[in-house]
């Protein structure tokens, strides 16, 4: 019951064409989005936008300097929290975690990465904000850190797993203790992959609004104090976007452009890291 060659060939071409179309569409949508954000947001960009704090409706000028810096502060705090724990547990899972406990951790990490981001915010609120009695950058960083944690853990594990066992065996055969093999052979081999995962996780949480609503809270002023509320880009964008004023809508687009730009730069960095890995 074989179909004629021509039919099979035609079907094959058709299906291949469909996949090309899908690929084109997903790339096209992304491009469309980028072009749209740039077109809408470019008008908002000027020197003040990057260097000044927000002003209320009707006041000329003003920018989102506080939110740009705030995003770095909060994401930095998230990294401080998530990277040591995440990378550490990734190493454990890959090197020592082939047991019941490892399975449980792996399962929990997968569940954690599926928990809606708003829940992370509420968690941080209950754990930190409600106890301290005030909103803070610290609690925002913690909420984002909890979001990053499973991603960093699992990427680290995957990357270490990709290092062939022969590398470990070779190290052990040379008489190196296990920790030396890990630190000097296995982790270096996987370090670029781990870094890539880390940067992607950072870029991912940098765009989160929901976990920050009840933690970082927002602040119209410039602040570096991790115990005070702090402004962040996604939150500022959200506030401006739901306002009724054209001026604020424009600033929302500007903030969207800056945020997209930052994520774009982070992804580019990852690409460059990856390219260097290819060449070495």
């Amino acid at each position, binding site marked *: 019951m074989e179909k004629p060659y021509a039919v099979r060939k035609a079907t094959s071409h058709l299906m291949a064409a469909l996949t090309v179309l899908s690929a084109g569409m997903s790339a096209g949508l992304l491009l469309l989005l980028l072009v749209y954000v740039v077109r809408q947001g470019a008008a908002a960009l000027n020197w003040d936008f990057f260097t000044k704090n927000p002003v209320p409706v009707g006041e000329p000028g003003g920018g989102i300097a506080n939110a740009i810096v705030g995003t770095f502060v909060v994401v930095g705090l998230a990294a401080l929290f998530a990277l040591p724990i995440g990378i550490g547990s990734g190493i454990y899972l890959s090197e020592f975690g082939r047991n019941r406990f490892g399975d449980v951790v792996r399962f929990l990490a997968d569940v954690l990465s599926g928990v809606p981001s708003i829940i992370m915010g509420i968690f941080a609120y209950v754990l930190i904000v409600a106890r301290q009695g005030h909103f803070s950058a610290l609690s925002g960083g913690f909420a984002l850190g909890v979001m990053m944690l499973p991603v960093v853990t699992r990427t680290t594990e995957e990357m270490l797993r990709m290092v062939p066992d022969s590398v470990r065996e070779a190290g052990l055969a040379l008489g190196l203790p296990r920790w030396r093999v890990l630190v000097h052979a296995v982790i270096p081999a996987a370090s670029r992959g781990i870094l890539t995962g880390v940067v992607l996780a950072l870029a991912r949480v940098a765009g989160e609004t929901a976990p920050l609503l009840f933690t970082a809270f927002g*602040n119209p002023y410039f602040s570096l104090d991790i115990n005070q509320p702090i402004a962040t880009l996604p939150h500022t964008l959200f506030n401006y976007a739901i*306002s009724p004023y054209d001026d604020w809508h424009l600033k929302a687009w500007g903030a969207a452009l800056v945020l997209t730009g930052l994520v774009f730069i982070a992804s580019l960095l990852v690409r460059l890291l990856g390219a260097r890995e290819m060449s070495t």
Partner: protein
Amino acid sequence: MMIRKRRGPVLVLVLILLLAFLSACGGAKPVSAPAQGGEASGKPITITGAGATFPYPLYSKWFYVYSTQVDPTVRFNYQSIGSGGGIRQIMAKTVDFGASDAILTEEEKAAAPDLRMFPTVAGGVVVAYNLTDAGGKPVGKGLKLTPQALAGIFLGTITRWNDPAIAQVNPDIALPDAEIAVAHRSDGSGTTFLFTSYLAQVSPEWREKVGAGKAVNWPVGIGGKGNEGVAGVLRQQPNSIGYIELAYAVQNHIPYAALQNREGNFVEPSLDSIVAASNAYAGEMPDDLGQLLVNAPGKDSYPIAGYTFILLYQDMPNCLKASKIHDFMVWALTEGDGYARELLYAPLGEQVEKKVIAKLNTLTCEGGKPLPGK
């Protein structure tokens, strides 16, 4: 050789980890120390508030002007997380003041008996629509609605635009024989509270079947989140009707209806007709200042309006902050009227303003002390 070459990246990674650990353990405390000493050393004190979305543009303007022109030693951080959120946060004492468009419910008053409401400005809820007449032309402003027709539409008993209940009072508009698409807020909101309170006042059927609240069980219609959500539904759905805040409708050029008030006049929502409603009710202002401005008497009164409130504790935990908040409030109520009008908020009438300021002057701090300098 292989191992040597790879040492660079791993050193960096280890360094990052070490740094991260160190700053995570030791970093938090030193940074927080100057924040607490900051108040004494002339750094501006920051007052944090959260709540209603509706007055956010005005509050941010007030705060900005106040701390740049009146008192540079104070800064305000107000976040518009919604009325319900504002009430919750002030009750959890995570903020210095709350803000709400809805008056406190009996349960909330029971849970926080020390919490007081201070009206700042009034706003109106408009019935907005997207309507094309029988000839295919969009209907701009000018639609008139009676309370009965409005209740009927939102109850689902009036389903077509050319229903006699609507057509009777709109002889100038060729109403289409089209189904009415109803839009409402899907989130808990002060706007919904005012709108449903009004319907519950004018329609016994509404009172019985649906009632009033920040979120209700809508008999008909599609939900949208926030003013922008409802406006979005209106834009996409031809022949639709919904309710949004006046400032939002005006800023976004969305047409809205004139409503028949208690005296039988059709009144367009405007600052003047909202002030008229607030003045008409001024004599009946209750002692807790929690008053609704729905279905107000007076021939010029617009029937769906309400105050928005700042929530403060009668006895505030910090004397310095308390006196700063007090001074700001008095300034906003007296000097801030112009900014309010500019942004389409109705300032308080004289009688109400006096009552609010008198009540502000009764505030105490740190266990019954009078505010410093008062």
